Structure formats: C-alpha cells, structure tokens
C-alpha cells in the first residue's frame, strides 16, 4: 500500500505521515532526504528527530538515489520528502530531469515495504514567477507528485494539521 501526504510548509505533513506509520506493527524505517544546510536546516532536522524519537523509527539518510536505500523487507517506510529528493537529484547530483529515476526508486520502495508513506511538498501555489531553473524544478516536482498520486491508494492533503482525503480510502474528507 502507498499513501501520499502533501501540503504546504509547516502544515502538519510529517506528523500525519508518522501517525499513519505508527498505526502499523511493521518495523519502522524513516528515509531522510534533507541535507543539513546551515543553522535552520540543522534545527528543522533536530525537530523532526525529536518527533520520531519515541516512535521507534530507524533513520536512513539518503539524499539521492533512494533505489539504493537498504531497507528490511516488509517494513513500514516513511520517505520524506520528494521536494528535497527532487532538488538534490537536480542541483547536487546534476540530473536535469530525475522524474523517471525517482519513480523507479518509488517502485523499489513499494516492492520492499508493506506500507510506504511518501511525503511531498506543495510549492507551486504562491503565484510568483521564479527563475527559469526554479520554475523547471517546480514543474518536475509537480509531475512526480501527480505520478505518485496516481499510483497511491490514498492521497492526503494537510491544512494546519487537519486532513483532507483526496481518494477517500482511509477516511472521508468531511
């Protein structure tokens, strides 16, 4: 089973995703894609680590190439997040369009796990025209989000910690 969690920055995506994983009895694996840049990055990572500490997650740091993540079979996997992963593949790994590569990675994780929760980020609703490279990143990320959503059993959007179900698989939206 695959569940996609999307939403704006600080809208409660991580907590929602963790809660879903913690409802399963499988071994809990957290794939972290965020590279610790500067003070703020360190702080965000520290905050997320605290949130997961008591929940029994094993953390795997995998900034790119998720298809190489060494995860035990039949585990419950939380991949966070596609926004970072996509940026890392493009800007650190130098892959101009990582769509197919990331989708192969997702397929691999789906095959290895009994439950895969994917967190992504909603980045294209502020109406601002960014530089060409940023616009290209946004377009690629949205394409990947659509592809994952299509294959997911459930797509959840978070709004200030509340949940909207877009496939009505886990819960009604109302």
């Amino acid at each position: 089973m695959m569940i996609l969690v999307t939403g704006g920055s600080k809208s409660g995506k991580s907590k929602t995703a963790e809660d879903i994983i913690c409802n399963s009895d499988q071994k809990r694996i957290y794939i972290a894609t965020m590279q610790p840049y500067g003070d703020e990055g360190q702080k965000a990572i520290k905050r997320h680590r605290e949130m997961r500490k008591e929940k029994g997650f094993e953390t795997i740091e995998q900034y790119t190439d998720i298809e190489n993540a060494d995860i035990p079979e039949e585990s419950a996997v939380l991949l966070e997040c596609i926004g970072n992963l996509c940026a890392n593949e493009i800007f650190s790994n130098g892959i101009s369009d990582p769509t197919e590569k990331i989708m192969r990675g997702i397929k691999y994780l789906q095959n290895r796990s009994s439950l895969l929760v994917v967190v992504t980020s909603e980045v294209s609703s502020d109406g601002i025209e960014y530089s060409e490279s940023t616009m290209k990143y946004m377009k690629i990320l949205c394409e990947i989000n659509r592809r994952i959503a299509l294959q997911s059993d459930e797509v959840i959007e978070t709004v200030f910690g509340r949940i909207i179900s877009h496939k009505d698989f886990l819960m009604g939206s109302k």
Partner: protein
Amino acid sequence: MKFIVGGAFQGKLDYAAKEYKVNKCDIIKGEELTENMNVEGKCLTEYHLFIKKMLLENKDPLSITEQIIEKNPNIIIMNEIGSGIIPMEKQDRIWREQVGRVGCYLAENAQTMERVICGIAVKLKG
C-alpha cells in the same frame, strides 16, 4: 472560536460575513490588531499579517495567540501562505513557519474550521 483559512482572495471574509452575520464594526484587521485589544466576539481577519507584525516587534506569535484565544474572539480568518518555494529572506521563512505553527494551534483550539476556495467553504473540523 471559528477558524477560517484559505489562499488569498478566495472570499473568506465574505463567506464569514454571510454565514455568521458579522457586523462590519466587529471586524479587526491583522495590521490593526494589537495584543491587548478586547477581541471578545470579534472577527479577526488577516491574522497572518498580525503574526508578521508581532515578529517585527520581536514577540512570540504563538504565546500571544494563546492569550488572544482566551479572550474568546468569535472568528479568526487567516491566509494559507506555505505552498510556495522556500523564501530567500530569512525573515520571510520565519514568518511562513510561524503562520504554520500558529495555524496548527488555532485549528486544534477551534470549535469549527473551514477552508474557503473560490468562495466555497469546505469543512475541516466540527
């Protein structure tokens, strides 16, 4: 407290005015709101701008929001601003983060919560 959210210009205040019969004189805009104001029964709109103002005054928006909630405002309206690229300016990043955190707190403490899109309200709580 009723919490109404949504993107800019989606009709949040119009919806609140119609649905909850808000008088014009009971509306307080975020930029005009101050932490010590009597907000009982009021409709606080553009609350994200109040958060920005508090940050500019080096105050903690979350603890001030806790105090404001205790005074029983009727409605709080706030924009969703988190669905974009990470802002270049640190101050904007802090604002965006604080709007998210305060929003989660308000959602938690609201009796009802609605999100307005194209003038249509979708109930998210209550």
